[in-house]
């Protein structure tokens, strides 16, 4: 192996992920596929709407809100959020003596944050593929999935970025308090805003909460499919801007984590 300058501590990359973190990501993706399998009787389009895009929460999609279906279909996302809510603090306890001093604080935290974000994207890509595969078992799948086109990619981009931001904000709260507190605070706020946005009389894009990062993915995704008839100019309708806003929300959490870790004691 090539020898590096002994005086430079800020070198290297994190070794391979821990088995538990890999299991959380793959397990939650499999759970989403399993939920889709159990609900495949709904029909291909309804399945995609319910499992992949949380349509059961939106009264306009089903005629009325389907809270139980919504909670069931949102379980895999919540499980992922809970499983990764203590990712940074748990990694810190494991890496304190052997990995952290070999890397330096900023580099370690930066790479941990990027891994947490990447985990959200991997989950999203995997689970979307599984749900799409399950929906292909239905005879009506052709026009449904085929018509979505770029919408499938936007789903991964928007929800992956949103999940990544949520995971990072969870971890930010968790390193200062506790994993459960971080999970409850961040996901409670997120779902609360979504629920508020869904209870209005018009579309989500018309709600006063449409600017909030939690609603960004929802509105922009509808827009990317051309489902925001006449409301394209409304807050959050441009998917590119929404990905950027969600990315910025994640970057803010990352910056605070890296800066805060510089003055944090590792016990």
């Amino acid at each position, binding site marked *: 192996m090539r020898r*590096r300058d002994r005086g430079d501590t800020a070198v290297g990359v994190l070794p391979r992920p821990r088995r538990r973190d890999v299991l959380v990501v793959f397990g939650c993706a499999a759970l989403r596929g399993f939920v889709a399998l159990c609900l495949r009787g709904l029909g291909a389009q309804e399945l995609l709407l319910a499992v992949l895009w949380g349509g059961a929460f939106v009264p306009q999609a089903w005629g009325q809100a389907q809270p139980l279906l919504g909670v069931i279909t949102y379980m895999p996302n919540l499980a992922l959020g809970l499983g990764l809510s203590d990712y940074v603090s748990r990694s810190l306890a494991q890496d304190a003596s052997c990995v952290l001093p070999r890397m330096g604080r900023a580099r370690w935290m930066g790479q941990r944050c990027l891994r947490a974000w990447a985990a959200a994207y991997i989950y999203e890509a995997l689970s979307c593929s599984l749900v799409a595969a399950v929906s292909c078992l239905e005879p009506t799948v052709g026009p449904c999935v085929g018509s979505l086109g770029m919408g499938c990619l936007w789903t991964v981009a928007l929800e992956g970025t949103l999940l990544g931001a949520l995971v990072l904000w969870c971890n930010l709260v968790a390193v200062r308090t506790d994993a459960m507190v971080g999970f409850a605070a961040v996901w409670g706020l997120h779902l609360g805003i979504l629920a508020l946005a869904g209870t209005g009389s018009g579309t989500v894009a018309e709600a006063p909460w449409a600017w909030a990062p939690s609603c960004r993915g929802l509105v922009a995704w509808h827009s990317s499919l051309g489902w925001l008839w006449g409301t394209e100019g409304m807050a959050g309708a441009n998917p590119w801007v929404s990905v950027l806003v969600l990315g910025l929300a994640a970057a803010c959490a990352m910056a605070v984590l890296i800066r805060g870790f510089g003055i944090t004691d590792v016990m």
Partner: protein
Amino acid sequence: MAGGAVRILGATKRIRGRTVLDDVTVELPRGGVYGFSGANGSGKTMLFRAVSGLIHLTSGYVEVFGQRLGRDVDFPPSMGLAFDSTGFWGECTGRQNLELLASIRRVAGAEEIERALLRVGLDPQDTRPFSAYSLGMGQRLLIAQAVMESPDLLILDEPTNTLDVDGIDLVLKLVCEERARGATVLVSCHNMPELEALCDRRYLMAEGRLVGEVGDGI
């Protein structure tokens, strides 16, 4: 012993109103073995955490090889640290664990890894995963990862914990070899007469304070 390895000046650390390090001042020359004794909770581990850069002092500072921690560097640039063994990958063998850690800085190669394992009495060809290791084997692996990159500063917190007689002999030999190589070794050696005998200087700690040097009227 030319030049200072570790310089601690007025190191004080308070955690939730409790003083765990109280105005510790000491200078340790390069290339020696320095032992720290004291009862549980006397501040030995906290002092080691301060010297290794894991905690930030409330007041005072630590300099390692002329670089101030927290200002010039996060961690001492060439340091081997043995605190606890929670950081290993349970599904990997001992050798694979060291390879993963060595891949971060790329200072140690396959030869150094094998040598480090042999020095602590572990078989480099052992195919058992770390999760199947006994506590003593885990402790040996922890010490192996600390020495594999031939660090200039070696910090061993209770290195003989959970080790059998053979393991303790290997650690004593290893500490001697590291001193002969020119490394500066900081070791907590409470109730370990054999380890205490190896130390060039031994300090006594109590209630977060450095009471003094053993043999210097103590």
